């Protein structure tokens, strides 16, 4: 044990005294699984749109078409390795350098789940969401959200997620409140966020 660690732990124990009181934690708030799923898709779409993301609702079979409609022709589009067929040329992320990521016009990924209550999308590093840099460096992110993956609340999401892979919770495009506390889009993360909710 380092000297610093030993000293800090001793200081803490001395400060707390021999038998510090450990309070019970009253978890009387709305727990995971306690809120019905009714209307979560509508609620999610409404809330994520309030962050100035653009929401598209389509059938599963129309996803590729919707992506192409958003992007138009001639864009350099990145996707995670082995991503679903979009019917257009794409660049798979086999460890693209940051310069290569920066040269992409847009990126299309899936997501792990979404939260209706807050309009939040959970990206979990892996096959569906890609690695973190992929959804960060390009300026335009098109994110696919399966309607069946939308949960009602933050506790539902925390219960479904875990520490095994890095997680990014995304609630709208990049924004800042630093200038007169107005939320304005677009500082460093993707400035345009399209969310395709499919069922």
């Amino acid at each position, binding site marked *: 044990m*380092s000297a610093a660690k030993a000293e800090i732990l001793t200081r803490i124990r001395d400060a707390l005294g021999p038998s510090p009181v450990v309070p019970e934690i009253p978890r009387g708030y709305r727990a995971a699984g306690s809120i019905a799923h009714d209307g979560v898709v509508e609620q999610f779409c409404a809330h994520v749109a309030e962050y100035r993301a653009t929401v598209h609702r389509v059938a599963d079979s129309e996803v590729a078409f919707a992506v192409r409609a958003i992007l138009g022709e001639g864009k350099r589009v990145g996707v995670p390795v082995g991503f679903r067929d979009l019917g257009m040329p794409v660049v798979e992320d086999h460890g693209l350098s940051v310069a290569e990521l920066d040269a992409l016009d847009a990126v299309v990924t899936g997501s792990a789940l979404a939260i209706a209550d807050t309009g939040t999308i959970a990206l979990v590093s892996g096959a569906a969401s890609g690695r973190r840099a992929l959804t960060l460096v390009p300026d335009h992110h098109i994110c696919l959200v399966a309607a069946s993956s939308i949960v009602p609340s933050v506790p539902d999401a925390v219960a479904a997620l875990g520490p095994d892979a890095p997680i990014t919770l995304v609630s709208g495009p990049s924004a*800042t409140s630093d200038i007169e506390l107005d939320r304005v889009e677009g500082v460093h993360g993707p400035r345009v966020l399209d969310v395709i909710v499919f069922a």
Partner: protein
Amino acid sequence: MSFKTAARETLQDAQLRRNIGKATTLIREKRLRAVAELPDWERLRDAGEAIKASAMATLPEQLERLEAAVTAAGGTVHWARDGAEANAIVASIAKRVGTDEVIKVKSLATDEIELNEALEAEGIHALETDLAELIVQLNPDDKQSHILVPAIHRNRAEIRALFEQTIARGQSLGNEASAIAEAARLHLRNKFLTVPMAVSGANFGIAETGTIGVVESEGNGRMCLTLPRVLVTLMGIEKVLPSWQDLEVFLQLLPRSSTAERMNPYTSLWTGVTPDDGPREFHLILLDGGRTQVLEDEVGRAALHCIRCSACLNVCPVYERVGGQAYESVYPGPIGAILTPQLRGLDAAPSLPWASTLCGACYEVCPVKIDIPSILIHLRGRVVREEQSKLTPEALAMKGMAAAFATRRRYEAAQRLARLGRGPLAKAAIPGWTAMRDLPEPPKETFRDWWKRERGEG
């Protein structure tokens, strides 16, 4: 000081008050709406308070669990008794990496230990990447004024002018906030893509899993946490949460209390090092820096529960008038008034516990229910007792100040506290005040006069 200079300062002050007043009014209303949406808000606060208290009561165990979990996930954990030790660890990592520049995510803990200055002395430039921090860093005479929005004292026109003189020299940015943000984006983009090392703070560290959480808006945090080869995170030991499940409480309490949104744009959660995703090296520095000293005070230690949401600043009538810079600390407002004197020692900031009207608004909004008014009164008592026992000239001045505050207004404040249903506090408060009222020294100056003098203006 010439009249012209004095007048200019006064005018600037008026602008500062207007800017802060406008911003805090706006965010107060927004926060009320965000909180009203959750029917279980009060129960979340109760849980948040208890989780923090339980983490503090079991702190040695939690920190050791955190260290074990981070290490198992491929990270390296360092312990720092004070700021100098933490700064030296960061500097030595930067030297090993061989970089003379690091990118930074807004972090109060690094501001508290003056990391940037320490690195600069070692020839390493620390570049702030948060828009507000950048605004403050670009003007050598400027200082942060708010935990969450450090440039809250600057309005749009001022920021535009600053950028047009610095990072966007020769350009005309126009009045749109988005154009101003774009200038910052262009300025920093290349740095994000090339600098090999980043330094961040942490909003949470989960003992159970070793997961660290950073909550932000702009994406500069994600850039720093994801792109560089080496990531160093400085975390005060009080930021530890025992379990993964605890996130469900704090991810609800924090955004609604701070930016008053349902959720902030980005929250990053990572555990050690992940192959093929993010930094190859992760260092977590656990900082004491006076926190164990705060823990010694059974009443005052609740200040360590703070999750730095800044809700208490936005409702504080004193903060609204004097602005954050007057608190002479990286922690302004009500939380600063109870945290700074405890972190630095009461001797170093004996006046801060008086920077309040005890109106109780800070307690009502605090997402982890820190009873700031009670702690203020408790600290006032400690200051007076400690100073009296010394009977130095400072002690006499302190008595005068104590008396200055023993006014009808304070009595009313006690009644207000009692009405808030905290009888014991009000009762505990009044004898203390009575004692102060009996002090022989008449008030030499009002709080505001004293404040001006302390700030070196007037």
